[in-house]
């Protein structure tokens, strides 16, 4: 065990992956000499060489598309997208090729790419540096979509993602890169599996489901709620596709109340999918309609407005009050 930041934990996970398998390659913009704009790949080019940690030309479709060709040849490319808002030039290759090639070829061609995406807001950045595009990818069959929330998961999950034979979209909560935690680097095997959710705070009254950057906020919300006598169970989804519905379902059967929170906009998002699926599975157990606490359905706003946009502890507690039928901001309003 050693204490390290989330960024460092991914770095050490990538280092292990490079050591474990000569077919693992890192590709991206500024990931070599600079070590990435968030320093996630710091020192790796020096230790593994420019042929395994490749600074690429500045073109996201080029990065993903050449990674597809490398995967055809038996490599396991790990692509870094510099920021969430810059993934769209590579979107076509991800959706039309990466996601579909295994299906297209009846399983003959494996696409074990890992596409790392620093995502989310809260860092006061300019436009295109704070987005949460995960739902686009979760909507796409053939991709796995995961997000880590703490250093240990970051380390374990990046290694599992690289070892996974499916393409994995790996969303890194950029505002938590400098969060420190204990990390055991001697993990072996697949426990907990990359597609399992984790209960990070136990509770009986409300199930609060989230992932990535908001897990820490949700835990704080659970502590604050307990001060008011409300017991909140917090679930870190970890995997957004596939979703570990069994864990959420078991929790909601116990609590009878569901709140889902994410930074991404609401419409057609992960929260909608969880609310619909869990309502179907737990209809007779529900005490209240599921609530969503999300970014608004607006383009990501300017830095001085982002605190209004991003779900925070108080908005989460307000939704908890709503499903508890306690006084809340919408009390007295119907529908």
């Amino acid at each position, binding site marked *: 065990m050693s204490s390290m930041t989330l960024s460092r934990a991914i770095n050490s996970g990538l280092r292990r992956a490079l050591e474990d398998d000569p077919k693992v390659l890192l590709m991206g913009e500024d990931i070599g000499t600079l070590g990435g704009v968030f320093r996630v790949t710091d020192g790796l080019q020096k230790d593994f060489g420019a042929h395994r940690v490749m600074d*690429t030309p500045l073109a996201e479709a080029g990065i993903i598309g050449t990674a597809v*060709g490398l995967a055809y040849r038996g490599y396991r490319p790990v692509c870094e997208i510099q920021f969430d808002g810059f993934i769209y030039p590579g979107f076509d290759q991800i959706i039309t090729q990466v996601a579909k090639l295994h*299906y297209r*070829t009846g399983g003959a061609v*494996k696409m074990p790419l890992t596409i790392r995406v620093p995502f989310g807001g809260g860092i006061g950045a300019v436009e295109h540096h704070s987005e949460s595009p995960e739902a686009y990818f979760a909507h796409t069959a053939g991709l796995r979509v995961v997000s880590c929330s703490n250093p240990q998961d970051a380390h374990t999950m990046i290694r599992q993602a690289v070892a996974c034979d499916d393409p994995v979209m790996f969303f890194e909560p950029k505002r938590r890169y400098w969060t420190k935690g204990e990390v055991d680097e001697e993990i072996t095997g697949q426990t907990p599996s990359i*597609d399992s959710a984790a209960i990070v705070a136990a509770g009986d009254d409300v199930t609060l489901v989230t992932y990535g950057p908001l897990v820490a906020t949700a835990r704080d919300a659970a502590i604050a709620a307990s001060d008011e006598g409300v017991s909140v169970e917090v679930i870190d989804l970890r995997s957004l596709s596939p979703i570990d519905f069994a864990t959420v379902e078991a929790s909601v059967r116990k609590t009878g109340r569901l709140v889902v929170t994410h930074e991404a906009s609401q419409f057609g998002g992960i929260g909608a999918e969880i609310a619909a699926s869990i309502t179907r599975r737990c209809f007779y157990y529900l005490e209240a309609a599921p609530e969503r606490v999300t970014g608004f359905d607006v383009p990501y706003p300017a830095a001085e407005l982002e605190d209004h946009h991003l779900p925070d502890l108080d908005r989460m507690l307000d939704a908890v009050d709503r499903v508890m039928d306690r006084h809340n901001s919408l009390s007295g309003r119907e529908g």
Partner: protein
Amino acid sequence: MSTHDSSSADDGGLVQLLLPDGERIADAGYDKWVADVDDDQLKSLYEDMVVVRRIDTEATALQRQGELGLWPPLIGQEAAQIGSGRTLRQDDFVFASYRENGVAYCRGVEYTDLLRVWRGHTHSGWNPYDINMAPSQVIIGSQTLHATGYALGCQQDGVDTVAISYFGDGATSQGDPNEAMVFAASFQAPVIFFCQNNQWAISEPVGLQARAPIASRAPGFGIPSMRVDGNDVLAVMAATRIALDRARSGNGPTYIEAVTYRMGPHTTSDDPSRYVDVLEREGWQAKDPISRLEAYLQSRGLLTDEFTGRVNATADDVAAKVREGCLGLEPPEPLSVFDHVYSEPTSWLERQKDEYVQYLQTFEGGQ
């Protein structure tokens, strides 16, 4: 015709070894690359071109008879595809579009496998690793990046295997082929960009995509290029061999523009009478790749009745096999719709599948 018609379609600067009338002309730079092509090889190239045209005719007929949903004819492009396809080594890897059935033929594809996609049975007619050729690519230009990445892999593996990407004149406007050139040049990847400029992208003439010859773009990326008569099987062979040699010896990518013509419709769903000028088509008819090689064989006394009879019999035999194979294809199992989305089944998808199985069981007699 629009103002976009012919500015990049002139014949200036074309590499040619066989003129349209079958005359073999000398070219100091290119001759040596086909010096080993003897009479037997010439005859075999001729047979290949006749056979792939015959496959094409048969597949078009199958589509007309309702046996295929769609077919993208290669007619007119036989020399470009056979001339390049026949120079590749078995370990080289092909990333093509949807029209390269002649290249697939050179790779040794099973005839029936050529049709699976177009009968709607699958998205990939073959296992790519069986013939070292990726499945047909519908997203225009996408495969150029895959070839470049594959070539980077070959480079890392320290082997002299080459990746070749086929794409059309329309594809040159897409971002991917341009990014592919940037990556290939930057890393000196052993890749060949083989553009079949067949003058049309569905109804859009090449002049809409390119105001200057397409081959003239590559040098700006730092990639040497050649503009060859794509209806001249020898010129295509020579150019491809030059490119292969450069790639194998570690000297990076090459761009080949094969200037040819799409004699048929874009696909069996297309109606070129809405946009193709009859005179233009007739002009290209006179440059047909097969009749030109035929004239050359004739001039060398190689076009005997015995030979043409044998070639036609082979072509008919292949066509019969294509038809038989097509009609014999079993439709896919309904539940295979769920297969191979991931390398292992996921709980979510298994649930959808289970529910659908139960649903199917509500019908009398099951599925």
